[in-house]
C-alpha cells in the first residue's frame, strides 16, 4: 500500500514535470520513427534498384542470407540493441530527479517522518523510475516491429520478433533499467544537482554500453548462452548495486549527510 502510494506520487510528479515526461516519451518515439524511416528508405532503394549493397564484407553471422536481407538484419540488430539498452539510459533522468528532487524540495524529512519503511520508500521510487522507461522501450519496440512489417521480408521480420530478442527486451531490459536506477540512487546520495548525478550515473554505465557496441560489431552474438550470461551478469550487478544503494539510502544518512 505504501509502496503504491510512493509510486503514484512519483508518477504524478513525472507527468507534471514536463521536461522529465517528454524526455521519457519523445526520445523513444523519435528514435522509433527514425528507425522505421531508415527501413522505409532501404525498402524504397530495394524497390528502385532491386538490391541493397553493403560497404565491405558481410559479417560471418550473416553469411547465407540474401544480400538485401543481410543488410537489413545488420541494421535491425543495431536498432534492436537500442530497444534492449534503452531502459539503461532512460531511468537516469527519473532516478536522479526523484531523489535529488526530494532533497531540493526539502520534502524528504516529512516523508521519512511517516511510518514508511526505508525499503518501501526505496522500492517505490525504484519501481516508479524503472517501469515508465521499460514500458516506453516496449511500446517503442512494438511500434517499430509493426512499422517495419510491410517493409522487410519474412526472414528479416522473423529476426525482429525472434523469441530470444523478445526475451532479451522483456527480461534483460528491465534488469538494465534497475541497474540504472540503483546506480542513480548511489550517485544521488552523494550529490546535490540532478544533472551532476545523471552525468555520474551515465559515466558508471558506460562500460555496459560496451556490450551494445560488441553486439553491434558482431563480437557478441545473441544466442541462448550469451542471453543466460547476460541475465546472470546484469542480475549480479543489480544485486550488488542494490545492496550498496540500500546501505546508502538510510534515513540518517539522507538527513544528516546529504547536503
Amino acid at each position, binding site marked *: 500500500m505504501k509502496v503504491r502510494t510512493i509510486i503514484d506520487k512519483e508518477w*504524478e*510528479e513525472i507527468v507534471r514535470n514536463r521536461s522529465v515526461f517528454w524526455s521519457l516519451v519523445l526520445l523513444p518515439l523519435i528514435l522509433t520513427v527514425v528507425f522505421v524511416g531508415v527501413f522505409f528508405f532501404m525498402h524504397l532503394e530495394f524497390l528502385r534498384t532491386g538490391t541493397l549493397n553493403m560497404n565491405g564484407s558481410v559479417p560471418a553471422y550473416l553469411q547465407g542470407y540474401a544480400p538485401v536481407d543481410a543488410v537489413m538484419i545488420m541494421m535491425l540488430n543495431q536498432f534492436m540493441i537500442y530497444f534492449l539498452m534503452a531502459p539503461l539510459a532512460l531511468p537516469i533522468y527519473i532516478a536522479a530527479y526523484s531523489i535529488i528532487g526530494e532533497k531540493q524540495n526539502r*520534502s524528504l*524529512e*516529512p516523508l521519512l*517522518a*511517516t511510518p514508511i519503511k526505508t525499503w518501501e520508500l526505496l522500492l517505490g521510487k525504484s519501481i516508479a523510475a524503472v517501469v515508465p522507461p521499460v514500458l516506453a522501450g516496449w511500446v517503442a519496440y512494438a511500434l517499430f516491429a509493426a512499422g517495419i512489417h510491410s517493409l522487410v521480408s519474412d526472414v528479416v521480420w522473423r529476426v525482429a520478433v525472434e523469441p530470444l530478442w523478445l526475451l532479451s527486451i522483456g527480461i534483460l531490459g528491465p534488469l538494465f533499467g534497475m541497474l540504472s536506477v540503483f546506480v542513480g540512487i548511489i550517485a544521488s546520495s552523494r550529490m546535490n544537482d540532478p544533472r551532476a548525478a545523471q552525468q555520474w550515473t551515465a559515466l558508471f554505465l558506460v562500460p555496459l554500453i560496451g556490450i551494445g557496441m560488441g553486439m553491434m560489431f558482431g563480437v557478441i552474438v545473441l544466442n541462448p548462452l550469451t542471453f543466460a550470461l547476460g541475465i546472470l551478469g546484469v542480475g549480479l550487478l543489480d544485486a550488488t548495486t542494490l545492496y550498496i544503494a540500500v546501505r546508502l539510502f538510510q534515513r540518517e544518512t539522507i538527513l*544528516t549527510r546529504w547536503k
Partner: protein
Amino acid sequence: MIRTEGLTRRFGAQTALENLDLQVHRGEVFGYLGPNGAGKTTTVRLLCCLIKPTAGRAWVNGHEIGAESDAVRASVGILTEMPGLYDRMTAVRNLDIFGRLYGMSAAERESQIKRYLQLFALWDVRDQPVGGFSRGMRQKVALARALLHEPPVLFLDEPTAALDPEMAHIVRDAIAELKNQGRTIFLCTHNLDEAERLCDRIAVLRTHLIAVDTPENLRRRLFGRHTVVRMRQIDPELAARVRDLPFVQHAIVEDGQLLVDLTDPELQNPQLVRYLVGLGAEIQAVTELKHSLEEVYLSLIEEGKPA
C-alpha cells in the same frame, strides 16, 4: 508523553545534543527554545526516529525510539522548518499522499483534508499546485499535513513563521484547541511572545538543557519577585524604612515607584500595604514587576554559555 534519559547525539567530533533528560506531559504545550545550532532540530529528529541517538533512551507516546520506530512515527505529526511540499501537486494531493502513508482510509482522508483546508482558509485553492502558493499558504498546508492523522504528539518547528498576524492567530488558536483535546505539542520557536502565550512549560537548550520550567517559575528563579507600589507622592527615605520590615528582602525607590523584593508576595503584600498606609502613603496601585520572557531567555542563554 515524551521522556528522555541521557539523550545524546554526536556527529563525528561535534556534540549536537548532550545528556538530555526531559519529561513532557500529556496535553502539555512544551516550548523548546534555544539559539540556532542549540540542538532543537536534532532533538526533534531523534524523537521522530529520523536519526539514532549516540547514547541515551527516549519514549514517545509510550513507544521507545529505535526499538518501536514505526509506532513512534505513527504517533507523531511533524512540521519541519521548511514546508517541504510537492510543488507540482495540488494542496489536496499533497495531503492525500501523506494520509495514505499514515494508513488513513479514503473517507477519513477526504473528511480530514476538507476539515483542515477549511480551517486554514485554503479550501478555495485546494486544486491549485502548491508551487504557486505564498510562503504562508505553504506553511499552512504543511501544518495541515502534520495534523491530518490526528497524532497525539505534535512537533512544530516555527509554526507561525511567515504567517500574517491573522493566520498566526488562527494557528495559535488551533494549537490551543489541540491542547484542549489532550494533544501534546512540542513547540520549537524563536518567537518568545508565542512561547509565553502558548506554552505551559519551556525548556532552554544550548546543546545541553539549561533550564526547564513554567515561564513564571523561571522568572522567579532568575529575577525573584518584585512588588511595585505606585504612590501619589514618594519619600526617598521610604525605601530604607520598608527595608527594616522583617519579611522584606530588599527595597528601592526607582522612577518614582517603590520596588520591594518579597519572599511570598501573596502573603506579604497586604502587610506591606497596611504598613505603607500606616505611614500615610497614598497608594495608587500595587502590581508585580514582570520580566519579559526575552529577558529570562537571554539570561539563561548567557548562563549556559561555555566558560
